[in-house]
């Protein structure tokens, strides 16, 4: 039993260490450094030995000294089996192994003789490795987008694995793609259109949704239940089934290629979500406050403006941010309705850039950064509101 536990401990730990090292090696390769071998056998066996040593030392030595010692041993070993690698690579290895040994420093013979210790160990490592892997997989495309926009066509073709940023070339050279995208490809204009459309959608949606949500949440009228169910149903209908009729109607009314047309459609499609989210919040506001307002002689307009709105500002901000995000990211309708470049939104412009003649990829990626960055900044800054908006309304999208 105990032998089995020790064996699984060494095996799992070393495998985990190796996986971490692998991710680091991939990252190093992507800095344009030639590295073609993971050295699986050697590193794995040495890892097992070190884990066993860790177990043997146990708590006899100061824990901090122990982990530094083991990490140093590991990085020196790695330095000798690999050749021609820069010093920062080995430093990275040292930090990773330090992190790893820090995680296993508490394991000793006593721990391993407990129940389920190997399962616990496995899940601990799985969590740590999972977090690393998930962040890598999620962030890598974003990182690639950013770095590609800083490169030139020649460099990209020379070594597709080189994702280092050369700061020595100076800022104007570094941001060249952005200058070109804004100057030659007119992205300033598209950005303005996108901003106008998104903000416009937010404002109009709120103007329509707040009164309606108030009525659904508070007032009694015939057909109320029917209305709240239909909101949910309508909200599940996708854009793709609306596209053909809207296209035919808008073509005949001359509303295609106009920002107004886009605004109408975006407002209508986000309205059910907005009403659904807002009425849920309005219901949670105590009724007594409004009754006090009625006694003070307020009409419904006064109640909405003076009592409901100030109290539900957080909910309104979530809805506003959520609607902004939908409108900013929207692609299908802008593809259908806009075919003249002077009315393009950012999403449509990037698609046009990709479909049109051979656009160098650094420009495409610079455009992608231009459309992605604002929404990510807004997301990180207003995370609390947007997350609650997402959870309330995110069945859509």
């Amino acid at each position, binding site marked *: 039993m105990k032998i089995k536990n020790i064996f699984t401990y060494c095996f799992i730990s070393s495998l985990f260490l190796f996986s971490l090292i692998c991710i680091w090696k991939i990252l190093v390769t992507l800095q344009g450094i030639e590295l073609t071998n993971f050295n699986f056998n050697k590193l794995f066996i040495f890892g097992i030995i070190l884990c066993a040593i860790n177990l043997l030392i146990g708590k006899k030595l100061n824990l901090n000294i122990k982990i530094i010692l083991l990490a140093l041993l590991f990085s020196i070993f790695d330095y000798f089996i690999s050749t021609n690698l820069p010093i920062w690579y080995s430093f990275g290895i040292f930090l990773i192994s330090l992190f790893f040994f820090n995680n296993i420093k508490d394991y000793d013979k006593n721990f391993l003789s407990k129940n389920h210790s190997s399962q616990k160990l496995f899940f601990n490592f799985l969590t740590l490795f999972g977090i690393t892997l998930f962040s890598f997989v999620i962030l890598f495309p974003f990182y690639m987008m950013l770095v590609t926009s800083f490169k030139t066509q020649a460099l990209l073709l020379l070594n597709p694995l080189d994702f280092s940023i050369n700061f020595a070339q100076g800022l104007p050279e570094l941001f060249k793609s952005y200058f070109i995208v804004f100057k030659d490809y007119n992205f300033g204009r598209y950005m303005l259109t996108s901003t106008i459309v998104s903000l416009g959608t937010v404002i109009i949606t709120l103007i329509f949704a707040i009164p309606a949500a108030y*009525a659904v949440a508070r007032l009694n009228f*015939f057909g109320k239940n029917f209305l709240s169910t239909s909101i949910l149903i309508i909200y599940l209908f996708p854009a793709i089934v609306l596209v053909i009729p809207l296209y035919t109607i808008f073509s005949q009314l001359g509303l295609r290629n106009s920002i107004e047309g886009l605004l109408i459609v975006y407002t209508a499609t986000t309205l059910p979500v907005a009403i659904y989210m807002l009425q849920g919040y309005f219901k949670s506001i105590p009724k007594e406050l409004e009754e006090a307002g009625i006694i003070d002689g307020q009409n419904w307009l006064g109640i909405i403006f003076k009592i409901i709105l100030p109290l539900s500002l957080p909910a309104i901000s979530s809805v506003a941010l959520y609607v902004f995000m939908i409108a900013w990211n929207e692609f299908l309708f802008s593809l259908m309705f806009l075919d003249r470049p002077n009315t393009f939104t950012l999403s449509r412009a990037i698609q046009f850039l990709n479909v049109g003649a051979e656009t160098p990829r650094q420009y495409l990626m610079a455009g*992608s*950064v231009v459309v992605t960055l604002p929404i990510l900044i807004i997301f990180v800054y207003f995370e609390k509101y947007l997350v609650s908006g*997402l959870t309330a309304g995110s069945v859509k999208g």
Partner: protein
Amino acid sequence: MSSKLAKIEKRTAYLLILPSVLLVFSIILFPIFSNIWISFKNVELKDLRIPEPRAKKLVKSINDNPNQIKVIYKLRNSSLTQEITNVKFKDKYPDDIEPISLNNKCQFKSNLLKCELGNWPKKYRENLEIVFQNINNQEISKKELKSYKPKLSGKSQNILLTYEFTLNNFKKVIKDKAFIDLLSTTFYYTFFGTVGAIVFGILAAQMVNQKFFGRTFMRSVLLFPYVAPVVALAYTWELLLDPTSGTLNNLLINYQIIDGPINLLGQKYVTLNILGFDFKLRLALTTVIIFEIWRYFPLAFLFILARLQAVPKELYEAADVDGANPIQKFLNITLPQILAVISILFMIRFIWNFNKFEDIFLLTGGASGTRTLPINVYQQGFSIGDIGMGSAVSIVIVVFLLIFMFIYFKLLGKRADEN
């Protein structure tokens, strides 16, 4: 008194919801119903342009006679497919000018030239020539004549408003050999995309539910793919997966994991050999599903994390006392607690993935075996230009959607009864 109040309340309520109801009705419900109408018609993209009678005005001077002038109207029907009936023509002239002779179609009265031009078949062209003179024998200014623009009007049948219906679109949709393939692709994509997103969502939620350094940051990062615009992400992935200069292929070749580049988005099938059995995997479709999972697992993660944080800690402590191992804890405590969220997520994500258009459109455009129903709507309606067919496919989608919604609301109602 109270009934009066109730009446006021009712009126206020209708007033408050009316704008929203009208807007949603005209932009969402009305189009869904007009889909039915269009799907029974034979309409093509080029029929959507309304036929117009058009006229181009040319003014020519007549030799040696400055007080006479010839005006030529080049008339034509703008439509190549439809006729215009009852065309009327109107143009204004300056004072003191009169036509010398007029044909029976036209009249000249108080500076106005009016003509009844009758019916114009499709592609119709005609030149109308009229000579004018100045009554006072003065020179006629060409410029002044040109400054007036003729006005034409006519009636044409709007193909969308006729009462001619056909079942051909639906016959074509159902009889199409690719229809079964289309359905199976759609369901394959929807099912695996949904399940994958939920599985990864559970994994991520489990991880983030533990305490570690940088946890809030991690939560934001996990939501990035969902928040960022599709267009940017799809094109980044396309570059990442590119067979010649893409990063992924180059990495794999660099580490000698594969021998040659794989066209992950352009190859329909790949043959895998597992335990001696060959089986075909739909490669491009799988790649698109992986993108789909990558983009939407954050949502499942968010829902499940919120639920996990509400699970009482005492349950786990009790399990520890009983000596349960981590797997038992997950199966017997965590899973039952998040099952409700998972089933709702599954239904909703299933409906949405079923209708997903942008992701596939941007990555493959529906090529190499990734054509789903929504992609087909676009291809029929806009690539081929057969609006009627596109609408018929939309109707197929709506029918499936109604079935899913029925199941969803049944489940939702059942769950509400249980609580």
